[in-house]
């Protein structure tokens, strides 16, 4: 065969592979408002940076006439590229090829690129768009899933893992995204569930649409399975690119430093918090008033909104922010907000990202549903995650820090490196009302005018204890600072912690309450 012929044959093979499931299937994909797998990859990566691997991989299944079927790239596109110059490994399932179904060759391609990502120490991005297991391949398909889950677990905490759900991701398949660090979903396109509406209807008689069961809104607002909601694939890709700038390539590196920028001019930080401790405000205004360029990249914005988590930069360096949100449920810790905060703290600790915690919470959410849902077990995750973390930990107490909530929110007692409080802080065993009602119970009950006595006792308790100075007098906090000093204090604390070394007892692994 002449060289020319060989090149022509190569071109033909590439062309066939790039057609995926063929023009008809591709048209169908577009009609569903979805991009094609390769187009998704090129949209996520820097222009011209994608290098595809394993384009000519073929399946080996012979049952059910599968040996007569050629599945282009076996239904998944894999390779490497860059995002803002950062190397990444990436795969995207191709729904036009046998519904993106996962067979053994398909799974092995994914495993290969995962192994590659771990070896190179670069983030892994997986785009999921698949009908599920390739039933014709039987147990081999299950083996494929298992090998992916195993790799997700081994790579956890070594390289950042990002999942993008751009189609159905159901049954066992959805456990791979669940094992990764960040899950992106897009309105009307993403569907995540273990058992679908059909099965639920047959077995339980409950009728529910796919959207209401595991659509993008439900996944980001109700279940918390996904972290980022977008209206379109383009918006979703823009968010992925932004996320990647905040996180390091792997657990041996730090996130890239950017040029330091002051916060944007806005309302004075000292005016954000209402004087009344029972009045709400948006804690994100405080975060924005402190961080570089007032740029706060929030994660899981719509789920458990009573706690706020996300990335920001201080003096150019990435920090992980955790903040109670008085605007929602008074900022209490509950089952969901505890899970949300604890997982984020562990991500930051695994990837060398300093933690900045803003505290304003009245305590834990009371309720039978909370107790029965295991708020003890879930709440304990926050204590565990903060105590375990050895990255620099800085805590700013804005207003209320009562009871167990005070301890949990990265207090000195859990190993914080710097704890500062604003003059508005109330660091106490509980709120003045509750404390006065317990301590002065008899006096209040026996008084001629119980309400007047109660008011007096609450005022007395507030005067004496609802401030930061008792905690400061005991050395539980390091300084009482004005709101305007916050940024400088936090930047300094993180800068002097850059060489922080904190050893932990040797162990195989700890046992966090999950």
């Amino acid at each position, binding site marked *: 065969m002449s060289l020319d012929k060989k090149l022509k044959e190569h071109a033909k093979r590439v062309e066939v592979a790039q057609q995926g499931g063929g023009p008809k299937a591709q048209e169908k994909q577009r009609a569903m408002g979805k991009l094609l797998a390769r187009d998704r990859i090129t949209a996520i990566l820097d222009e011209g940076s994608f290098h595809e691997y394993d384009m000519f991989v073929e399946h080996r299944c012979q049952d059910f006439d599968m040996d007569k079927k050629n599945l282009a790239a076996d239904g998944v596109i894999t390779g490497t590229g860059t995002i803002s110059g950062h190397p990444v490994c990436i795969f995207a399932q191709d729904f036009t090829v046998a519904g993106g179904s996962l067979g053994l060759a398909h799974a092995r391609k994914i495993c290969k690129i995962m192994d590659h990502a771990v070896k190179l120490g670069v983030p892994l991005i997986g785009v999921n768009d698949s009908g599920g297991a390739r039933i014709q391949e039987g147990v081999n398909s299950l083996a494929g899933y298992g090998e992916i889950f195993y790799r997700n677990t081994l790579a956890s905490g070594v390289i950042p893992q990002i999942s993008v759900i751009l189609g159905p991701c159901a049954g066992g398949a959805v456990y791979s995204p669940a094992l990764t660090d960040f899950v992106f979903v897009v*309105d009307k396109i993403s569907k995540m569930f273990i058992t679908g509406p059909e099965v639920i209807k047959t*077995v*339980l*008689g*409950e009728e529910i649409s796919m959207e209401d069961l595991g659509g993008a*809104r439900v996944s*980001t*607002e*109700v279940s918390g399975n996904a972290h980022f*909601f977008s*209206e379109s694939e383009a918006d979703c890709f823009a968010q992925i690119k932004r996320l990647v700038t905040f996180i390091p390539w792997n657990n041996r590196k730090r996130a890239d430093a950017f040029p330091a920028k002051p916060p944007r001019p806005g309302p004075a930080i000292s005016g954000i918090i209402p004087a009344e*401790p*029972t*009045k*709400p405000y*948006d804690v994100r205004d405080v975060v924005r008033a402190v961080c570089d360029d007032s740029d706060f990249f929030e994660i899981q*914005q*719509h789920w*458990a*909104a*009573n706690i706020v988590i996300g990335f920001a930069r201080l003096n150019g360096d990435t920090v992980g922010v955790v903040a109670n*949100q*008085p*605007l*929602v*449920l*008074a*900022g*209490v810790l509950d089952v*969901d907000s505890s899970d949300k905060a604890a997982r984020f703290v562990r991500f930051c600790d695994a990837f060398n990202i300093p933690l900045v915690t803003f505290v304003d919470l*009245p*305590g834990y*959410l*009371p*309720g*039978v*549903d909370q107790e*029965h849902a295991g708020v003890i077990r879930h709440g304990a995750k926050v204590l565990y995650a903060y105590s375990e973390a050895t990255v620099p930990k800085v805590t700013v107490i804005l207003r209320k820090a*009562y*009871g167990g909530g005070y301890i949990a929110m990265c207090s000195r007692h859990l190993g914080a490196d710097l704890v500062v409080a604003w003059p508005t802080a109330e660091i106490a065993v*509980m*709120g*003045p*009302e*509750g*404390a006065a*009602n317990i301590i002065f119970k008899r006096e209040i009950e026996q008084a001629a005018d119980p309400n007047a006595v109660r008011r007096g006792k609450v005022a007395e308790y507030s005067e004496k204890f609802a401030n930061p100075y008792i905690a400061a007098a005991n050395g539980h906090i390091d300084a009482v600072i004005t709101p305007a000093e916050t940024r400088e204090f936090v930047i300094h604390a993180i800068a002097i912690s850059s060489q922080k070394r904190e050893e932990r007892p040797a162990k195989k692994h700890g046992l966090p309450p999950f």
Partner: protein
Amino acid sequence: MPTDRDLPATVLVIDDTAYQTTATRKFAERRRWVAPDPRAVVAHIPGVVCTVYVKVGESIRRGDRLLVLEAMKMQNDVPAPCTGRVKAVHVIGGQMVAKGERLVELE
């Protein structure tokens, strides 16, 4: 997508202090807990009632089989939680029941 600024305003009382805040969708839609009635036998799992073995007025002893509920491909005996008399039977064979649905009431 609703933002958390659009969430319904609510007052949350913690340690005798009322905080002005907003409720999450999950919190607003949570089901209030009601004490279970020990004399009401409810489906502990969703499924299909296979056979009902008792009639209204019948005396039964604790542990007697009231009915069989098929769920998750298993035939589950549903026993009487206490000794007494059958006050009402709310289901018939072949009926699909949801989790928590009342099956039989005793007195």
